[in-house]
């Protein structure tokens, strides 16, 4: 049975719709991220799941029982969930052990049992030696671990995380996102994770829900999401990309500055007509100095290097196809060095580009 089911969920503040028509089903033990820019409705959705906000439309069910509907909302304290907050919300008036044991005490666990679970979780998050410290004496990363331990130790039905890493510095953030995934693999708690950082979502999640303007854009696993974005927003938000906007007609597609064969595309051969758009990742474009002897099933575009920047791990070039306004970003290995103004040929593999709704739509 599905663990958590959101159906047509919506929330309007005054007249401003914050979340619209969100439907989502989580399986037991699944780790799902809500990903999107600030103001996209992801935190509102999470707080509706937690019960802090009541929906103005739609329902939330857990284990087949209703939790939220516009006029009936189970209070947060009755949901058996736990949550990690952006501010951590570690209670500064309690020690690490008191913080972590709080939920267990509310569940009236016998003393022996409580101590055992407390010690185990503190070991898991490597805080055993700090159990009698107060939060003010801990570093940011340690506070984060307290929040994790406090949320996980009660073995909640659903674990909710609200941008938990946004207050940490970059190195710690990378460490903690792996930690969160490791804890999930150890405890298999159904998890909803809100973030605006695509790397965090991709490292931690089984599936990612991309949201924009209060609506779901796409729900997919990280690999599909990156390689098969279904909307321009998703393509642009997850990683960097180029959009190719052209017109299809009788087997060819005319782009600004070049024409390509539609029959090389894997899925849509021959059927295209009218405006079409594609997303091409910068690293899926290969630079060559000379025209190919054999097209080799790829699209070839002649152009010139317009700008370049060296980023250490790779070169970033901007290439302009002949006589066109189009600017294509291309990533190239550090050893492939071109000067601004050099004439180049671009090789685009039609099997590694994604069709997205055309910009006129």
């Amino acid at each position, binding site marked *: 049975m599905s663990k958590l089911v959101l159906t047509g969920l919506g929330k309007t503040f005054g007249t401003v719709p914050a979340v619209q028509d969100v439907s989502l089903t989580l399986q037991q033990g699944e780790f799902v991220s809500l990903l999107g820019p600030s103001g996209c409705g992801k935190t509102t959705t999470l707080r509706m799941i937690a019960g*802090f906000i009541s929906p103005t439309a739609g329902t939330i069910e857990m284990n087949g029982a209703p939790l939220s509907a516009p006029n009936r909302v189970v209070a947060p304290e*009755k949901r058996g969930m736990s949550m990690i907050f952006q501010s951590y919300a570690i*209670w500064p008036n309690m020690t690490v052990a008191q913080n972590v044991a709080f939920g267990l005490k509310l569940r009236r666990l016998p003393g022996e049992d409580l101590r055992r679970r407390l010690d185990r979780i503190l070991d898991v998050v490597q805080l055993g030696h700090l159990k009698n410290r107060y939060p003010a004496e801990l570093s940011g990363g340690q506070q984060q671990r307290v929040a994790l331990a406090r949320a996980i130790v009660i073995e909640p039905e659903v674990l909710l995380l609200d941008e938990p890493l946004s207050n940490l510095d970059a190195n710690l953030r990378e460490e903690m996102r792996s930690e969160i995934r490791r804890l999930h693999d150890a405890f298999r708690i159904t998890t909803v994770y809100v973030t605006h950082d695509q790397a965090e979502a991709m490292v931690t999640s089984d599936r990612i829900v991309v949201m924009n303007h209060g609506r779901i854009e796409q729900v997919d696993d990280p690999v599909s999401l990156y390689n098969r974005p279904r909307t321009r927003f998703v393509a642009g938000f997850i990683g960097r990309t180029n959009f190719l906007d052209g017109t299809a007609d009788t087997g060819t597609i005319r782009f600004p500055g070049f024409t390509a064969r539609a029959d090389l595309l894997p899925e849509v051969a021959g059927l295209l007509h009218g405006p079409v758009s594609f997303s091409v990742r910068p690293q899926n474009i290969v630079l060559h100095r000379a025209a190919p002897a054999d097209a080799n099933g790829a699209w070839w575009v002649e152009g010139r290097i317009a700008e370049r920047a060296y980023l250490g791990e790779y070169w970033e070039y901007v290439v302009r196809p002949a006589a066109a306004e189009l600017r294509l970003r291309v990533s190239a290995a550090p050893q492939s060095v071109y000067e601004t103004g050099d004439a180049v040929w671009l090789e685009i593999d039609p099997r590694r580009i994604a069709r997205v709704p055309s910009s006129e739509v």
Partner: protein
Amino acid sequence: MSQTELTRVAAVAMPTRRRAFDPALLLWIVLAAVLIFLVVNPLFRLVQLSLEDTDTGAFTLMNYVTAYSRQRYITATWNSLALGFWVTVLCLIFAVPVAWAVSRTDMPCKGAIRLLVLGAFVTPPYLGSIGWILLAGPNSGWLNRVWMTLTGAHEGLFNIYSFSGLAFNIALYSFPYLFIFTSAALDVVSSEMEDAANILGAGTLRTTLRITLPLVLPAILGGAIITFLEAIALFGTPALIAIPARFNVVTTQLLQFFSQPIRAEVAAAYAVPLLLITVGLFGVQRWLVRRRGFVSLTGKGGDRRQMALGPWRWVMLGYTLLLLSLSVLLPYAALAQAALAKAWGRGFSLDNLTLHNFHYLLFEHETAAQSVINSFTYAAAAACIAMGLALAIAYIVSRRLLPWAGVLSFVAMAPFVVPGIVLAIAFYAAYAPPPLALYGTATILILAFATRFLPIGYANADAAIRSINPEMEDAVRILGGGRLLAIRRVLAPLMQRSLIGAWLLVFIPATRELSTAMFLYGPNTRTMSVMLMDMSEEGNFESLAALGFLLLASTLVIVGLASGLLGRDFMLRRERG
């Protein structure tokens, strides 16, 4: 809005499991009822009384005609306005240079100076007046005697019993308001603002005049308005100085309407314009302070360097110490001398020392000891009521538990613009007549004190609650604890210190409140402040000084304890503007 409508709105905004009834709504209704009792009804009754014929209850404007028909009543109003103006001018001269020197220059001894400003701030103005009567009473005052000894003159130089003496005296205890406003504004003007002018070629003077001063001008003007309003609403100092000097201001005139036979309806009519002036000027003040938006005043970044004054820093220190000597050191010394003297006029000598004045007050005088107990118990009770109310309102406002909570916070802040003396007359109008007939009881004094200082409690409770991230409570709830558990286990412990601070900020002014008490006390409910006024009429300066000394000493002890708990500057921070 009807109750069913309220219920419906509440249900839409915050549905719960049982949508029919929400305990938060009950709380809202209770709080609204309490606020109506404490704030709305008295002010309504005040206006109503001023428009009523006392015998028939019919509508009339005659009370206003009576209140403003005599030349002396109009003169009193003019005196008040002139007094407010001159006090404000003096305070600007006193406070702005000192605030600038403390905030932006390398003047020495800043710690001691802040402490003395705090001393001036917590000194009840009427105690300062008694000190100044001892210092500058015609001929017998200490300063006059020194002058006559030095010059051989036959007449003293100073006469505190004059309009200028009154304005000077009030200014000595009002300038801390302006000091707080100005230094708070100066403290957040980044040096980078000044550097930006310097790098473009402006010198120090030009930068100060063109950049720094305009940046803090709205704050200074806002502080000046508060000073003006404090001055015209003050009762104690005018009662001690203006009445013997045979002129009246609005507040002393109001007391005369209250002497037998009590003409409360005329007093009400006479008080309403004072209320309107206050409300209007507060509106201007809010507007001025809000307009500071373009300034860096909210920003943090940028260090604030101190300007090197060179030898001028000693000049600034001299000016500052002169001011603080006049405000604190000399009057305190005069009070202490009189309190410990058999006869204060005999000066400093060992055979003149005695503790008899304190013994007399505490064990021989009929009502003095009781008045000390009254002052502290009433203040404590008022602080508890005000803080309880303030906390409940601030909580439901900040957590948005209900719509229309903003109305509660508006009403809770409203007494801020009501002068104490007007509030007293309003309470008299509302609760002196039957059925409650509370006039002269401890109850009416406590409720009036609680109302008068409710805005201080509310502003502080609100700040305390807002400083705590709501996620702290959310974390309790998502783990399975209810809202009450979250309040008990997390919110209450976290707010403990700031709430004790807020309680003290209500308690301290309530212990020395005079203007409200003066109009509502009865034979057995005198407070220390009222007792002081009574004794000043008897002219027994030794026991008067001793009682003042007790009040001052206890205030300083409490402030000292609070400073230890909350940081030394807790009263000088700008929280109530």
